[in-house]
């Protein structure tokens, strides 16, 4: 009689097996990293590599390229997210409110980087960056200009979802009919309601910037991944530890992002 229950049981077994096997596959390289970086010279385990990694003085003195890379990436993260938000949020809102006809065009442009591999973009950016170096110097920070382009598709999608969810037009019209000017509308009505989407877009950008290697490497600039790669030629254990740390950081960032969304959902019923 319990036909449905039997089918559900079979499904559960299938699910557990598949997810289990896949999880093992996913975990192996990560375990490999942990194993590799905790090898003690005479056998056994040690956390010496991590002690070194998190010792600022040692990094500063013995592994300057790593320090440069970390600082550069930190700056790149901030700059990229800032440029992306300042440029995209007002533009997307503006298009929805005043230039609905342009929406397809803006969307096309934002999704274009998906079709243009980073390696191709690098080739075309070389002359551009010659100009950038001429005006602004050779700092790695100016990679942010290119990073914003790489980030566009993901940020656009996140912001678009957020703006769609709140019916920008109606909110803006309501605010305007009550006498609000455009700045007020943007700052006090729209922005607070797309907080989740903004955070989403920002987190995605952070993850991407932390993982970027191609452009930095081919323009001979510094960032985290370039530093790790270089370090790998010298001290593979430390480099792997740094890579693992970067990965954990990205994981925390992205995991945190999924909770930002979840928290909002659980908050709404209380507000009603």
């Amino acid at each position, binding site marked *: *009689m*319990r*036909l*449905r*229950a039997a089918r559900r049981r079979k499904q559960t077994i299938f699910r557990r097996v598949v997810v289990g096997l896949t999880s093992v596959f996913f975990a192996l390289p990560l375990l490999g990293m942990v194993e590799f970086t905790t090898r003690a010279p005479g056998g056994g385990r040690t956390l010496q590599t991590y002690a070194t990694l998190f010792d600022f003085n040692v990094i500063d003195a013995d592994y300057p390229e790593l320090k440069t890379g970390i600082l550069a990436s930190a700056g790149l993260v901030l700059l990229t997210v800032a440029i992306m938000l300042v440029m995209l949020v007002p533009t997307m809102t503006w298009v929805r409110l005043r230039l609905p006809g342009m929406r397809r065009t803006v969307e096309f442009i934002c999704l274009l980087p998906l079709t243009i591999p980073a390696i191709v973009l690098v080739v075309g950016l070389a002359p551009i960056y010659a100009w950038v170096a001429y005006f602004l110097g050779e700092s790695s920070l100016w990679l942010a200009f290119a990073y914003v382009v790489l980030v566009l598709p993901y940020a656009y999608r996140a912001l678009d979802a957020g703006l769609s969810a709140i019916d920008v037009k109606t909110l803006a019209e309501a605010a305007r009919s009550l006498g609000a000017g455009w700045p007020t509308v943007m700052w006090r009505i729209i922005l607070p309601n797309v907080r989740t989407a903004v955070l989403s877009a920002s987190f995605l950008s952070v993850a991407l910037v932390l993982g970027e290697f191609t452009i930095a490497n081919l323009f001979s600039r510094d960032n985290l991944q370039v530093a790790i790669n270089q370090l790998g030629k010298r001290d593979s254990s430390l480099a792997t530890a740094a890579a693992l740390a970067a990965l954990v950081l990205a994981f925390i960032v992205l995991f945190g992002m999924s909770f930002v969304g979840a928290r909002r959902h659980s908050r709404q019923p209380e507000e009603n």
Partner: protein
Amino acid sequence: MSPTQRPVSDSVAASEPGHGVAVTLVDLRRSYGPIHALDGLTLDIAPGEFVALLGPSGCGKTTALRVLAGLEDADSGRVEVAGKDITAVPTSARDMGMVFQAYSLFPHMTARQNVEFGLQLRRIPSARRRARAAEVLDLVELSDHADRYAHQLSGGQQQRVALARALAIEPQVLLLDEPLSALDAKVRVQLRDEIRRIQLEVGTTTLFVTHDQEEALAVADRVGVMRAGNLEQLASPHDLYARPATPFVADFVGLTNRLPAIVEGGRAILLGTSVPLLPGSVQRGAALVLLRPESIAVTADPVGSATVVSASFLGSTGSLHAVTESGETVLAQIDNDAVATFHPGDRVTLVPRPNPALAVAADTAAAPDESPAAPA
């Protein structure tokens, strides 16, 4: 499990009304933790009969239908079709046609292909398949749209295709799970009459689930009002309306006034007169009498004891809100041309018609969302 190999007859018209099979649900129980979705439900459906299950959300009507379909297991109880116990038979072998509330058409197939699907599974040769599908699409009046896809059809058209698909296989039982709830009001009324017409023509035993009482009353041979997993009353639409067995049924089906009265000598005394009682009424003392709006006559009377609050024109009829001397709000039905003659503040006399009414204990709670002060 392969579908039963019943031969599909060549023509719909060949079947006579009432050729359907008997369906019996025996003492069905189903719980989800502390919630009893089905609480000992027993229901007999005669061959060819159209039974509607009516009730508020959570009453178990959809669960009952799905247990009959085999899409859910009951914890205990039996399902019998044509005298055979089919409780352990999987859905695909039950030979029942089902129409869902929405989204049930396969999106990658045309209407015709959807309708032919069940026949295809039964290995009916393609020529006969086409003929049968055409026949059934004709029955639901969608022959012109046979080659359209679901997203190209309106909601009402999609449901017709769903109905045709269910009927194409000549099922023993037809199951409809709130098929009209997702449609516009006008389409709903139109389609429900068509469903009834088709069912009478084809003669299949049918179970129809809805939360809309007007719908249930309009289409069914018998209506079962459900609450908390069991039947409160199973009767013809007329009996359900005029002779409700419990206060819940009286409240749920149609609009009801609840007016204080004194019960004595087999009658209820209120509004300066008395009315006979329905079986199941309180026999003595203070009570509430459940009166339908159309059972209250309104006459303009400068010395009447009630005062008009508002009079509304509803199209084919009208409604009048009045307050009695003792502060009771009464909703009465009036002729549509009489609406203009009543103004707020006018005095009127309210007289209940002499039909039997149900009297309940004075502290009986009303059914949720059903109060005469909030007209539909």
